[in-house]
């Protein structure tokens, strides 16, 4: 069994993503423990191999169908690389790319996957992953006993500094599989984020509302507090999806990552996808009527007082 680890590098505007560095650092650790090599796959026209000095080898594939990401093209290329290079473990970030490719490759490469990984170690030959499931309420420690494994890793799980290095990896240029000439998914347009609203990533203080607020009308209560504090109102994804607030205010994995001096959350459970966007705030104060809500595991201060009692009391306290 090989002890090699393969990481898929994600990039935007020529910059390797933070999530990729996290995977590379962990991949380095595992490959070293197994006496194997760390390889990193990068697709498309932009050469980012200079940023991948931590790896032993950089495998580059280019083809017109790889100019921008599509699940169809990336999957075909990765499957070919996995077959050729036969790593013990493939590491992907549990973002859109990981959600697209992870389980598809588990099926087509006949590997076993652990999703939502937030810790990863080796026990002898066996990778042992800890996954965060059920909205963060349960952790599962899972051995990958199969000879081929795939882990899709939650962003922010591993230090990214460990993924940076100044070595000179071997550069391997691999041919693209023939299937790319007839893509079944093609890009029509990239939709850039809306920047017309306030920038919640620039605020010192954020008041953030979750589904516990209940309705658009009741959001007014929390808005009053935000106004009283002179802070922008941000929110968890369901509040945005329900159309109560614009997308520009969404905190989390598929929204914005914020790092204010203080983050006040009301009626947010603390699902991993939300925590990904705010866990680095300097001070987190959470209000949630469920004492077991995962938000309390990252908050510095918490209260189980009902938000509809607490929020007006805070407004009064500030005014008084």
């Amino acid at each position, binding site marked *: 069994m090989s002890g090699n680890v393969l990481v898929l590098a994600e990039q935007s505007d020529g910059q390797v993503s933070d999530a990729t560095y996290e995977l590379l650092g962990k991949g380095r650790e595992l490959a070293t423990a197994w006496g194997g090599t760390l390889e990193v796959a990068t697709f498309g026209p932009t050469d980012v191999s200079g940023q991948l000095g931590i790896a032993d080898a950089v495998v580059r594939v280019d083809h017109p169908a790889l100019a921008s990401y599509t*699940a169809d093209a990336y999957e075909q290329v990765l499957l070919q690389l996995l077959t050729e290079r036969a790593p013990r473990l493939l590491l992907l970030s549990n973002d859109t790319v990981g959600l697209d490719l992870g389980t598809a490759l588990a099926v087509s490469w006949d590997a*076993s996957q652990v999703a939502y990984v937030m810790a990863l170690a080796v026990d002898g030959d066996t990778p042992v992953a800890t996954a965060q499931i*059920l909205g963060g309420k349960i952790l599962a420690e*899972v051995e990958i006993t199969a000879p081929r494994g795939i882990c899709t890793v939650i962003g922010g799980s591993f230090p990214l500094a460990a993924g940076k290095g100044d070595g000179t990896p071997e550069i391997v240029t691999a041919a693209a599989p023939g299937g790319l000439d007839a893509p*079944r998914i093609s890009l029509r347009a990239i939709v850039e984020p809306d920047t017309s609203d306030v920038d919640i990533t620039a605020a010192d203080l954020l008041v953030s509302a979750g589904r516990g607020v209940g309705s658009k009308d009741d959001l007014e209560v929390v808005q009053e507090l935000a106004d009283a504090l*002179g802070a922008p109102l941000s929110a968890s994804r369901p509040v945005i999806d329900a159309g109560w607030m614009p997308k520009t205010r969404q905190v989390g994995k598929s929204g914005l990552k914020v790092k204010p001096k203080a983050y006040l959350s009301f009626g947010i459970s603390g699902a991993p996808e939300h925590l990904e966007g705010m866990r680095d705030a300097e001070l987190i104060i959470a209000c949630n009527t469920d004492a077991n809500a995962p938000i309390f595991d990252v908050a510095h201060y918490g209260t*189980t007082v009902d938000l509809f009692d607490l929020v007006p009391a805070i407004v*009064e306290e500030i005014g008084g």
Partner: protein
Amino acid sequence: MRIAVILKAVPDLVEEMELTSDGTDLDREYLKFVTNEWDEQALEEALLLKDSDGAEVVAVGMADDPDIEQALYSAVAKGADRAVTIAGATGVDTRSRAAAVAAWLKDNPADLVLSGVQAPDDLDGQLPAALGAALGLPHVSVVVSVALDGAAAIVRQEFSGGRAADLNVTLPAVLGIQVARQAPRYAPVTRVRQVMQSTTIDEASVAVDEAAAGIRVRRMYPPEKTTHAEMIDGSPAEVAARIVELLRSRSLVKG
């Protein structure tokens, strides 16, 4: 145009999660189950496509899922044309479910297969990608809108930071839905009751090979509370006073 929507019954996250005595699985006996919220979004997106373009919407569940009939009757009450349960796969794991659904879809092809982007308990990965690979179909996850355009779907796929991509996807295809274009419609209880009287859920059965899982759960446990928040007790006014003091000490409240 036929659209299959795959639904899963998952533990209600509002409840406390009970573990089995050996600590390697959820104790499902005492848990309350609900339809995976992202599957509800997938159903809504399918019904929106039916409204705009005309389509037959088939709601599909696994026969062994707790209370799945209720979810399927509710889907029909909202506008699905028929409902099917698939027997033959007992697991909650994604791989065996994907194998069962893929086997069923081979005999009952759909132009579009929609399911939720993920489920709270899909430890071994997500259904849409598994189905896509098992069926050899193009698949897209984290989808936030779908439109039909002849033999293709125009799909918006979301990335982090508010970025998205509009894609042409050749049909048939599998889509993992993050959110429908509008909030899921509501089916009044009386309507669901009517449907329960008048609708028969088709029962299908498939044979799937018992594939080796390749993963073994050593233990499940609630996150250790070593980093738990300091809880502020007291009346709303007392808690509010403490919170404001915390903010004032960091100069985050004017005055």
